[in-house]
């Protein structure tokens, strides 16, 4: 009987080794293309896409096995989560959004195509007066323009199609939301769990460090760094990620502290499992539920932070994120109101959806709430 046990263990170890190998190769490949990109050929991908691939690889290597390990748990919580109608509504909207971000660009015009003749077109079904000043006569020539079906949501002051900009903005806002939260969650979890598990001096140092990071006024710090190094979307994402993890770290630390004393952790320790093994295979899976909740609740905050940065003029000018469209539209709110209204509504609905989903999940994962 024992050799069957031994053989299964050796198989899983072999599979692990293959998985590790594949992961390392992929990472090496990614880094070489990055180096190539910087020094040799200019701009194969932009920085964000690298981040995209790196996080994707990380997720495949560690994320999926973790989720797979606690799939029964997640399946159970999933049933509880469906009860909350608002959460389901939120989830459906988010899935639509992700679909829109990928499929959308195929069905819409090029968002960067400028055409001054079609400047400030109102949305379909609306007509506005557009007047141009004539210096000779010192009079205005006003002409009425009505919305065309070609630009259902109208155009901005450069004649760019608003619908196309909103669609491309979706991808940007989701990227910002997911990456920044991803970085913050990974950092928060690692620091939280290791602080709780290792305890003693390391716990003290890590928590003091968290204290210092937490007392920095988050938005002031963000504006400061973006102002110094110039507004670049990748930088914004990384800075939000690197400064937004403190809340997560604290929550996960308190959760893992209660887990650490639980019998099953003691048991695996008694069986001689290494600390890393315990953290990875025991503590983190049990904290997964908390992580998912924190993630869905912090994504809206991050999206709004990017929009706020754009509002005060520190958004990345080369990227048509909702925040940037909103800022441009907001200056002429009384004349071309639709340019500000469209991104405003999209921001509102997306943040609302994530909030509902997060709240529904929190209720589902909270054993005390009787669903």
């Amino acid at each position, binding site marked *: 009987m024992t050799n069957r046990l031994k053989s299964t263990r050796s198989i899983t170890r072999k599979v692990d080794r293959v998985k590790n190998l594949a992961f390392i190769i992929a990472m090496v490949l990614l880094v070489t293309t990055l180096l190539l990109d910087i020094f040799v050929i200019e701009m194969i991908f932009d920085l964000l896409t690298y981040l995209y691939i790196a996080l994707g690889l990380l997720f495949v290597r560690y994320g999926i096995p973790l989720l797979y390990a606690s799939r029964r748990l997640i399946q159970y919580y999933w049933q509880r989560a469906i009860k909350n109608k608002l959460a389901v509504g939120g989830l459906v909207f988010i899935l639509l959004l992700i679909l829109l971000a990928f499929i959308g660009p195929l069905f819409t015009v090029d968002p960067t195509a400028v055409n001054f003749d079609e400047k400030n077109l109102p949305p379909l079904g609306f007509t506005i007066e557009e007047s141009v000043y004539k210096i000779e006569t010192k009079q205005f020539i006003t002409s009425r323009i009505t919305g065309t079906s070609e630009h259902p949501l109208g155009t901005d002051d450069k004649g760019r199609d608003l619908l196309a900009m909103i669609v491309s903005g979706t991808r940007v806002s989701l990227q910002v939301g997911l990456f920044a939260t991803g970085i913050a969650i990974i950092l928060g979890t690692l620091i939280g769990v290791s602080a709780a598990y290792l305890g003693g001096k390391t716990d003290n140092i890590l928590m003091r460090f968290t204290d210092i990071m937490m007392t920095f006024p*988050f938005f002031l710090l963000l504006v400061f760094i973006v102002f110094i*190094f110039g507004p670049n979307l990748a930088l914004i994402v990384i800075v939000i990620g690197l400064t937004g993890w403190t809340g997560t770290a604290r929550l996960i630390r308190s959760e893992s502290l209660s887990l650490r004393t639980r019998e099953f952790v003691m048991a695996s320790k008694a069986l001689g499992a290494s600390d890393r093994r315990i953290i990875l295979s025991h503590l983190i899976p049990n904290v997964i539920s908390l992580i998912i909740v924190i993630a869905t609740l912090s994504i809206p905050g991050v999206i709004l932070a990017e929009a*706020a940065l754009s509002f005060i003029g520190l958004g990345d000018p080369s990227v048509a994120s909702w925040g940037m469209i909103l800022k441009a539209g907001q200056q002429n709110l009384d004349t071309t109101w639709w340019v*500000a209204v469209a991104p*405003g509504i999209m921001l509102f609905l997306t943040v609302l959806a994530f909030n509902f989903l997060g709240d529904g999940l929190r209720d589902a994962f909270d054993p005390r709430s009787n669903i």
Partner: protein
Amino acid sequence: MKKTWLRDYIIKRLLYAIFIAWAVLTVTFVMVRVGPTSPADKYLSNLAAQGQDTSQVMAAIEARYGVDRPIYEQYLNYITNLGRGDWGWSLSTSMSVMELIKAHWIYSFQLIFLSSIFAAIIGILIGIYSAVRQYSKTDYIATFFSFIGISIPNFWLGVMLILLFSVNLGLFKTYYDTSLSLLSLANLKQLILPVITLGTGMLAGYTRYTRSAMLENLRKDFVKTARAKGLPERTVIGKHVFRNAVLPLVTIIMFDLGSIVFGGAYLTEIIFGIPGLGQISFNAIFADDYAVVVAVTVISAFLILMINLITDITYTYLDPRIRYD
């Protein structure tokens, strides 16, 4: 008996707060000077326009601001001045930093304070209501209403409110009038729109945490005892249950207070023209006004630490089981 360990605990925490504030000060002090921009930049284009040799004059101006000396020397000088209570001179506003902060902190404080109260009262009421009637229709409506606040980008909401109420309906002035005395009713009236803008952002936090804190305590046995004693439902919920739910709530209210101090408040200040610390600190960043940036960061950090301390102390009064000795 209680007072002794509480006093020692407070002293320990105060020392700890001073240490953290000092750490924040040092980090900001260095970080501010490491960026590529310098306070003398604004002279750059003017000097060049005069056809003057920019580098020579720039060096002189940087010497005037004292930013040309090595960082540790500037730091020592800064700390010795700080010892004498001199937070330095603000270049971008031509007044002493302390005077600047003394003149403007009240505007930010009143905005944040009133918004927190507004959000706390409404948020807690909604939270209790939707907890008592969990998963009923009203629970969904209440949650939906409170989430609207947090989901609307508050700078967008602010502009909309001004266009609607100040311009079209003419009920409010379009900007904050500093000539009105702070305690006057007129000042309260002109704060209504900014408080709504900032407050709705905090509303969802209070509702959500009140609801979960209430849910947790609604099922406890002492609720049945209270009802068995024939107490009216209002007393059972309002006194017995809420009194226990307040504990986690205090943490959240205080934590929220700390984190949103700058984010939402700054944008609300810009839109409604409230000359609070939010605007001062961000304009200082854009103008490379090191003294103001460091001062504001340190003060806000110390404020957040004090808020945390007050939270922990209120814990001991709220829950007799907690002691920190």
